[in-house]
């Protein structure tokens, strides 16, 4: 098992800038990407970037990629390319297929997930024919593989991707027979649509593709487009047939958050950010402590916002690992947030600014709801409340399942591995400090159970109602005694289990019989 302070998954703009910020504060960083080259989408973005000078504006995507990679190498960031993360597992364990080196498992203190976005699709008759492809796919073929996808291309969608890829296909020598969009006006930047309109490319607004036609041998050979009414339904009789050999679909991007979902990070649906996105706070930390989500993974925006979100996470990780003082990190974060705010101005940016605020609001709502860390019901688990370094370890040997470890020296505080604890409760009576309890948080959809040692003469009966008390002996609620376990081997330490509403699961630690003075 390899141990790493910070593992960053995805070497696009967000991942690269996170690696740079973190390693600048000499955090031990490992950056992983499944492609042969780092840079993510940057390497097919041959256009110059918008934004302020802090974001390489005016520089082409491919050159930004090269510069970021150079910075990483200069800072000594360890980079594994051609390496696929197949899963993020409990306790921040990451499994990676490192090309030619087999499976590597890494235990990370902090994880930053920057796995970007992938293309949305739309379905129409004939959409599975070869030659029908994503606009991003056409861009990859043209700018990365330097192969022309086709001679006559129909582009579906007038968002920025549709407009920019159409322009780049013209540069590469293809003919764009038209852009089709059900909207009544171009949804991307007008400056982008102007670039292709002055090349004589027709825009078919209030239109949609009715079907693609083709043969088993050649794939796509033509397409039929049709006008749509207010409800986006095709208007009979307005069909137009066009001779094409490629249909490119630019239906927007959706966040790729498989690894965050697998790691139990909570998510919500925000259409302005591309669909289902993992929740995060101001430092880009997800609802799973120590796991961050940055860039398109947590909201499809631009490369420059991805850069800033990466920096934000990198700085916060450095601060949390005590490699940066709080004042230093707060200072840097302030500058980043200023730049992020600028990037989310104007008619296009505002929606995204509002959406990001909503994301953070939902994060706070979730955290405040104090939902149990694992809201799947795991049955009873031991809870060890022994917070001093006492030379004592009977609990370690009491557990048959190796769930409690003290090790050397004997004064170590006991550590519980919840995975291994099956809730048998055999450690409770063994603890000389009576400091171990058994809590079943999700006993049923309303209640939890709490078990604790009770070495007093007024031991209640099973089924009796008692008063549940907290750690200070204060009354919490009435509780039913579900079980009393008094075995020989407990050596006069009966274990009582009481039923309490879920909200008292972490407070009820004792009982007093009703009517007692």
């Amino acid at each position, binding site marked *: 098992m390899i141990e790493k302070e910070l593992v960053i998954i995805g070497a696009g703009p967000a991942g690269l800038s996170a690696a740079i910020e973190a390693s600048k504060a000499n955090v031990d960083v490992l950056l992983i990407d499944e492609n042969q080259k780092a840079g993510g989408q940057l390497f097919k973005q041959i256009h110059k970037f918008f934004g302020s000078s802090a974001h390489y504006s005016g520089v082409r995507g491919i050159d930004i990629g090269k510069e970021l990679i150079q910075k990483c190498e200069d800072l000594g960031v360890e980079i594994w390319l051609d390496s696929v993360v197949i*899963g993020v597992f409990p306790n921040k364990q990451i499994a990676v297929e490192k090309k030619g080196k087999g499976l590597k498992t890494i235990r990370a203190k902090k994880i930053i997930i920057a796995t970007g976005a992938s293309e949305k699709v739309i379905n129409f008759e004939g959409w599975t024919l070869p030659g029908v492809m994503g606009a991003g796919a056409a861009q990859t073929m043209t700018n990365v593989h330097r192969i022309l996808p086709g001679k006559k291309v129909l582009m579906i969608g007038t968002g920025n991707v549709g407009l920019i890829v159409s322009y780049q296909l013209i540069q590469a020598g293809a003919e764009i027979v038209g852009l089709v969009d059900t909207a009544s006006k171009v949804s991307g930047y007008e400056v982008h649509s102007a670039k292709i309109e002055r090349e004589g490319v027709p825009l078919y607004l209030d239109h949609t593709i009715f079907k693609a036609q083709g043969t088993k041998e050649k794939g796509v050979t033509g397409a039929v487009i049709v006008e749509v009414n207010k409800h986006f339904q095709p208007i009979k009789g307005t069909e137009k047939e066009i001779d094409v050999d490629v249909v490119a679909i630019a239906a927007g991007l959706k966040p790729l958050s498989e690894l965050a979902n697998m790691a139990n990070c909570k998510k919500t649906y925000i259409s302005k950010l591309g669909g289902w996105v993992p929740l995060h706070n101001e430092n880009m930390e997800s609802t799973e402590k120590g796991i961050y989500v940055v860039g398109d993974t947590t909201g499809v925006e631009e490369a420059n916002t991805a850069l800033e979100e990466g920096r934000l996470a990198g700085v916060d990780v450095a601060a949390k690992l005590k490699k940066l003082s709080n004042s230093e990190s707060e200072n840097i974060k302030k500058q980043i947030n200023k730049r992020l705010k600028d990037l989310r101005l104007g008619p296009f940016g505002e929606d995204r600014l509002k959406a990001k605020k909503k994301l953070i609001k939902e994060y706070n709502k979730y955290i405040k709801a104090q939902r149990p860390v694992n809201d799947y019901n*795991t*049955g009873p688990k031991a809870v060890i409340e022994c917070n001093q370094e006492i030379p004592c370890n009977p609990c370690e040997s009491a557990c048959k399942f190796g769930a409690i470890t003290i090790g050397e020296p004997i004064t170590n505080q006991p550590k519980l591995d919840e995975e291994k604890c*099956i809730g048998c409760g055999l450690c409770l009576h063994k603890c000389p400090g009576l400091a171990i309890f058994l809590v079943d948080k*999700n006993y049923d959809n309303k209640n939890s159970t709490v078990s604790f040692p009770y070495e007093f003469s007024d031991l209640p009966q099973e089924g009796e109602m008692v008063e549940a008390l907290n750690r200070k002996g204060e009354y919490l609620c009435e509780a039913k005694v579900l079980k009393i376990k008094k075995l020989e081997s407990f050596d006069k330490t009966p274990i009582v289990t009481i039923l309490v509403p879920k909200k008292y699961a972490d407070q009820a630690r004792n009982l007093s019989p009703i009517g007692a003075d």
Partner: protein
Amino acid sequence: MKKYDAVIIGGGIIGSSIAYYLTEAGLKVALIEKKDLASGTSSSCDGNVLIADKQPGFDTELAYCSQQIFDNLSEELNRDFDYTQRGSIYLIESKEEWETAEKFVNKQRENGYSMRMMDYDRVHEDEPLLADDIIGGIEIDSDASIYPMALVYSLAEKAIKNGLHVYNYTEVVDISLNKGKRVKSVRLSNSEKIYCDNVINAAGVWAPLIGKMVGINIPIKPRQGQMLVAEKTFQIGKRKIVEFGYMMAKFGEKDYSRKVHEVIDKNGIAFVFEPTQANNFLIGSSRRFVGYDTRLSLDVMRGLAARAMRFFPVLKDINVIRGYSGLRPYVADHFPIVSAVDSIKGYYIAAGHEGDGIGLAPVTGKIIQNFITDSSWDLSIDKDETISKLSFSRLRD
């Protein structure tokens, strides 16, 4: 006022089988499922219909009886559920295993079950891609496999044709009894109250929650199992293939230890191979007590892959495309609870089938049908032995 003869709680393989047999007997039945049909363990398991892994005696009789019902089920139901009856094979790795296997086969043959030992040539001729150091096997003729989810929908759809009302995405909130401690009505999460003479708790690993609603403690614990799904590829094995080594403990050879990596033993990993009609194949199986946690463990996935390659080295270059986990409803004595509850009239339990829920679904449906209607007992197993072996009261601690 909605009134049913019976309300079944739990839309898995057991609930839908009971729904089929009760509606076949003309009863007015409702099925309550908190999500969609087959959304629990019935969609995260494999489709085994086996007697291979059963102890001689009632254990085998019960499973064999269920196997026979499957034959005519595939005619009675209209939606296909990939019923394939090709028998199964146990793989034997060592001399010790061969001796225990021989004793097991002889005993079962005496009881009339058609199975036989396979020597080295026979097992390798039957499954040519097997690792060449496998020394033999057992061939069990009556074993079969099905596509579990498809059977749930197939049973439910026929039951719906017979008049079943399905309330999916609806949870049971409470069950109320009349003064004579007889089942009266069920309160649903859509705040409806439906009246019924009988309630059948077929909620699998969640059966204990439904038990608490009438104040009884049902000793069913979730035992997590994990599986791997392989990509579609050429045929590896023709039928269900299971390793015998893991069963040694079940057949009384407590101190036999397989020569496997410690991770494989610790997680109760046993090689199970199941081909499917969709050209993928499934690799199982593992056993862990982790409460209701269904997250995948990387160690278990690695152990499953390793154990599969030990028996079929050809799997080396084949891709795993998915891992999933399910929660077996575990009962300490390995028998399900298919029984009335004497303290509460009209309340039945049909849960706790551990790893045999799919195979035992038909016989469980028929038993409950017999308990509730006055239909004759036309099963090959003995009625009194069934009632006592599968009774709830047997488990009162």
